C-alpha cells in the first residue's frame, strides 16, 4: 500500500537495510551481482568470499544507489560500495576486506578455515597498478 495514510507504517530504506543487516550473518552490498559484478572492487570482494567458501547474501545497490548510500551513511557512516557486514557490523570495503583476507583475520571473523596461501592473492599493502586498476564510479 502506498497511500499517504500508511506512511507511518512504511519501513524506510534505512529500516529495511537495518533489518537486512540483522537477518544476514554475512551480507555484501555490491554493485551488480556475484555472478555479474558491475565494479572491479565488488568483484574482488566476491572473489575473496568465494575463495573462503563462506555463505553470504548479496544485495545489488545499483537499482537504488542514492537511497542506499544515505541509509548506510546513517547506519555505519559509510557511503561507498562494496560494503561487507558480518554479524551485524560493517567490516569494510574492498581495501579492508583484502587486507583482512591476506592477514587471515577475515577467515577468523567468518569462522572458516583460511585457504592455503594463494599466489594470486594480494600481499598486505600491495597496490594494484595505478594505470590498470579497476575504476570506482561514484556519482
Amino acid at each position, binding site marked *: 500500500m502506498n497511500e499517504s495514510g500508511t506512511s507511518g507504517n512504511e519501513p524506510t530504506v534505512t529500516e529495511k537495510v537495518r533489518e537486512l543487516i540483522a537477518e544476514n550473518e554475512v551480507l555484501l552490498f555490491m554493485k551488480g551481482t556475484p555472478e555479474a559484478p558491475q565494479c572491479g572492487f565488488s568483484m574482488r570482494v566476491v572473489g575473496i568470499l568465494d575463495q573462503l567458501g563462506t555463505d553470504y547474501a548479496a544485495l545489488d545497490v545499483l537499482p537504488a544507489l542514492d537511497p542506499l548510500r544515505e541509509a548506510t551513511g546513517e547506519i555505519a557512516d*559509510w557511503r561507498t560500495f562494496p560494503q561487507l557486514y558480518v554479524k551485524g557490523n*560493517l567490516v569494510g570495503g574492498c581495501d579492508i576486506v583484502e587486507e583482512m583476507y591476506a592477514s587471515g583475520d577475515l577467515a577468523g571473523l567468518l569462522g572458516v578455515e583460511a585457504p592455503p596461501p594463494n599466489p594470486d592473492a594480494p600481499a598486505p599493502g600491495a597496490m594494484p597498478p595505478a594505470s590498470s586498476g579497476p575504476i570506482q564510479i*561514484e556519482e
Partner: protein
Amino acid sequence: MAADLAELQSMIEDALPGASVEVLDEGGGDHLRAVVAAPQFDGLTTIDQHRLVRAAVQTRMDDGTIHALSITTSLPAAG
C-alpha cells in the same frame, strides 16, 4: 580537478596529531591513496581507523576533489 596532495596530507596530520602521513596519486589526480600511521589507531578496528582518516578529508570528498580514496593504516613503529 587534481587534488592538492600537500593540503590533504596536512588535513590528515591536523586531525591526527603525531601521525605520519603520505598521500599518493594513483591515477588522474583524483584517485588517491593515503598511507597513515597514527598513535590514535591503537585499539581501533581497521574500519574505525579508516573512518578517522576519511573524516579528516571528508570536505574534499564532498566537493568532488577526491573521487576515490584508498586508505592504508597502521600503528606507528614502536620506539
